[in-house]
């Protein structure tokens, strides 16, 4: 709900979604592209929270926080750089903020192009840039409510 309010106020689409990204949201996003009949290929990347085991304890969820102002700037730069490098028709990025349980989706990147050759390198570029450039912080919460801080490698 916060996301919707933010979208209306800023008159621009927000990347951040409160909690997990639902499969219904992804389906809706796919369906919206059916009027764009110059598109021949879509590529979708989904990040899913793993129930990793660390010292015998299982991750039950990740809690994401962000430096939102810088994150939005970085997402914007990644968007611009991607459209510069690849011949895409459109591109969407959504990232969870707050709690996402193991098995749920926390990142949804969606690129579309006339031809399939463009989408493969584009999706990989976007995902790697997000991981490297965007100040998002994941706290892995274990089943016993202890936690550790995640770090992208």
């Amino acid at each position, binding site marked *: 709900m916060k996301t919707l309010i933010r979208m209306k106020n800023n008159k621009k689409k927000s990347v951040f979604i409160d909690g997990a990204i639902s499969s219904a949201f992804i389906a809706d996003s796919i369906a919206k592209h059916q009027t764009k009949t110059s598109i021949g290929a879509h590529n979708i990347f989904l990040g899913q929270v793993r129930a990793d085991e660390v010292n015998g304890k299982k991750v039950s969820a990740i809690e994401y*926080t962000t430096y939102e102002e*810088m994150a939005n700037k970085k997402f914007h730069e990644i968007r611009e750089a991607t459209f510069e490098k690849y011949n895409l028709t459109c591109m969407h990025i959504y990232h969870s903020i707050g709690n996402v349980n193991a098995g749920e989706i926390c990142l949804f990147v969606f690129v579309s192009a006339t031809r399939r050759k463009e989408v493969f390198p584009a999706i990989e570029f976007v995902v790697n840039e997000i991981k490297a450039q965007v*100040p998002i*912080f994941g706290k892995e919460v274990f089943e016993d409510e202890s936690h550790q801080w995640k770090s*992208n490698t």
Partner: protein
Amino acid sequence: MNITVKYFGVLAELTQCMEETIVFTKSTVIELLEVVYQKHPTLNGKNFKVALNNELVDMGTIVSEVEVALLPPFSGG
């Protein structure tokens, strides 16, 4: 000048603070961090980067902005 220092992720947890105002009389990032370390000894030896105006900067940069962010390793995605 008055600097707003923001702490994120594990740094907010260690300082038990998300944002605070620090009166700063010197000039560079490293000089600001000396003040920060004095207030929060738990940050000593921790791995983080510093952002001014939404860009990462190095230690010698002049603190020209009133908002400075301390960012632990990114883990989005």
